[in-house]
C-alpha cells in the first residue's frame, strides 16, 4: 500500500524552481532513500511533506488523505514525523524529560510515556546521560535522542533529513541498527542522505532528485548505476 504520495508538487523561491513537478510515492514498510546533489531540492521537498512549507502547486497524500498545506502539528498527530538535519531537542530540560514531553505530545499518558522513555533510553545507549540537560549532550547523543522522541509513540512514517551527517561512525552504526530494527517491525522511513554506503546498505529503494526534479526511482542498486544519476553527481561529489 502506498503510505505517502505527492502529485505535481512544486515550490519556487523568487524565480528559481526549488522543486518542480515532483511525484514521489513511499510504500508502507519500506525504507526509501532520497538522494541528489546539493541544491537538488531534497530538503525543500521534505519541508513540504512535513508541513513546514506550503507548496505552490500539487498535493500531498498521506494514507489516502489529502494533507496538502496541513500544519506540522496536524501531520505529527497523524503519525507523520520529521527529524531535522540540525537537531532540535529541548536543551534546558533533561534527556529523560525530552522523551517524556514528546510522549505526552503524542497523546500517551504519563505513566506510559515514562515506561517507554526508559526502554528507549536503554536501546539508544543513552541511559548513562538521561539526567543531563539535552543541551549538554554531544551532537551524536542528541541525534539519538531525536530518534527516541520520534519513536516514543510509533510513527507511521518517519522523515529523516541527513541523519548521518557529522555523526561519529560508532553512533552512525547505532542509528542504522535502530532504523533497521524498526523497519523489521514494520515502520516506514524516508531517508534523505548523502552517505551512499549507508543508503546502499539501508534502503530498499532510492529516488534521486536533480534541479528540483525526480530523475530516477527504483531499487537502490539500479538507481545508483543509472547513467542519469551518475551524470547528475559528476562534477559535484562522486560518491558512487
Amino acid at each position, binding site marked *: 500500500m502506498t503510505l505517502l504520495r505527492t502529485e505535481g508538487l512544486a515550490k519556487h523561491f523568487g524565480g528559481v524552481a526549488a522543486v518542480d513537478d515532483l511525484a514521489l510515492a513511499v510504500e508502507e514498510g519500506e525504507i526509501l532513500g532520497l538522494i541528489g546533489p546539493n541544491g537538488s531540492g531534497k530538503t525543500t521537498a521534505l519541508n513540504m511533506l512535513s508541513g513546514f512549507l506550503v507548496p505552490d502547486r500539487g498535493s500531498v497524500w498521506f494514507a489516502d488523505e489529502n494533507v496538502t498545506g496541513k500544519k506540522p502539528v496536524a501531520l505529527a498527530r497523524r503519525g507523520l514525523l520529521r527529524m*531535522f538535519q540540525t537537531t532540535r531537542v529541548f536543551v534546558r530540560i533533561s534527556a529523560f524529560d525530552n522523551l517524556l514531553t*514528546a510522549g505526552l*505530545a503524542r497523546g500517551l499518558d504519563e505513566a506510559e510515556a515514562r515506561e517507554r522513555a526508559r526502554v528507549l533510553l536503554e536501546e539508544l545507549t543513552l541511559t548513562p546521560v538521561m539526567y543531563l540537560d539535552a543541551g549538554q549532550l554531544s551532537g551524536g547523543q542528541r541525534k539519538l535522542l531525536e530518534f527516541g522522541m520520534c519513536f516514543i509513540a510509533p510513527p507511521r512514517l518517519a522523515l529523516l533529513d541527513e541523519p548521518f551527517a557529522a555523526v561519529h561512525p560508532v553512533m552512525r552504526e547505532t542509528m542504522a541498527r535502530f532504523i533497521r530494527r524498526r523497519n523489521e517491525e514494520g515502520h516506514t522511513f524516508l531517508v534523505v542522505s548523502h552517505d551512499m554506503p549507508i543508503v546502499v546498505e539501508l534502503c530498499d529503494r532510492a529516488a534521486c532528485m536533480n534541479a528540483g526534479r525526480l530523475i530516477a526511482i527504483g531499487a537502490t542498486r539500479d538507481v545508483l548505476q543509472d547513467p542519469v544519476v551518475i551524470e547528475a553527481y559528476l562534477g559535484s561529489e562522486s560518491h558512487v
Partner: protein
Amino acid sequence: MSDARNLWSHRLAVDFRAALVVVAVLAAAPIVVTSPYTLGILIVSMYFALLAMGWNLLAGFAGQFSLAPAAFAMLGAYVPGLLDYHWHVSLAVGIPAGIVGTAIVGWLLGRVVLRLRGPYLALTTLSFAEIARVVISNSYDFTRGAQGLNVPTLMQSRVGYYYLFVAVVLVVLAGLFFVMRSAIGRFWLAIRDDETGAESRGIDVVRYKTLAFALSCAICGLAGALYGTFSQLVSPELGLLLQTGIVIAMVVIGGIGTLTGPLVGALLVYLASEWMRGLGNVQMIVFSALVIIFARFFREGLWGLVARRRVRALPRAAAGAR
C-alpha cells in the same frame, strides 16, 4: 546536576516547597510586623510578586519575552475602576471582570503575535503597552486621564488586605505548580527551548502559546485589580514601561523559569528599595546594575544559585534513581 534531581518533576517539587516556605514566612509576618506602614509595603511587594510570577509564566516558562506585564496590570486595575465609576458595578463583579477582561485581551494579543519571536515580539508587546497607556491617558472623559480614577476599597482592615494578598499569592503559586507539573507546563518548556522542534513533535504551538499569554495576562490583571482597590486610585502610571522594567529586574534577580525566583526576587527588590530610599534614592541604580550583572554572570538568578548549591552539598549516593 547529573542525577535524578535534575528531572523536571523533582526540580519543580523542590522549587514549590521553597516557595511555600516563603509564603509561610509572609503569612507569619504580621505576628512581628504590626505597623500599618510596613504592612502596606509588604502588600505592594506582593503585588509585584504577582506580576513577576505572571510575567515569568510567559517569559521564563513559555519563552515569550513580552514587555507588556505592567500594561496588563493597568488594564486589570481600570476595569473594576471604570465599572464602578460609570455604572456603580460592585467590586464583586468588577474584579472578576478585570481578570476575565485581561485574559481575553491577553489571548487576543497572543493570537496576533504568534509568528513573532525575540526582538520582534518585544517590540510589538512594547507598542501594545504604550498604546494602551496613551489611550487611557488621553481618554479624559472616560478614564479621567492622567488624574487617575478613584476606586472603592474592599475592606478597611489593612491586616485583612495583607492576608487577602497572601492568599492570592498562594493560590497563584499552587496553580502554577499544578500547571507546570502537567503536560501543559512541559509543552511550554518545549516551546521555550525550540518552537519548531515542539511543533514537529505534535505540540500545538498556537494553542499553548495563546494559553500562556491568556493566563499570564490574567495573573497580571488580577494583581492590578487588587492593587487598585488597595490603593483606591488607579492611574496610567501603573502601565509605565518603567514598571515592566522593575518586574523584569525582579524575575531576573530572583531566578527566571522557577517558582521561587520571581516571588523572592519581587520581595527582596521591593523591600530593599524601600530601605534604600532612606539611603539617598539609589535603589533603581543598584537594581538595574544587578539585573545586568545577573544576566551576564548568574543567569540562573538567586534561586538557581541556591538550588544548585543545595544539590552539590548532598552526597551523590543519596540521590538514587527515580
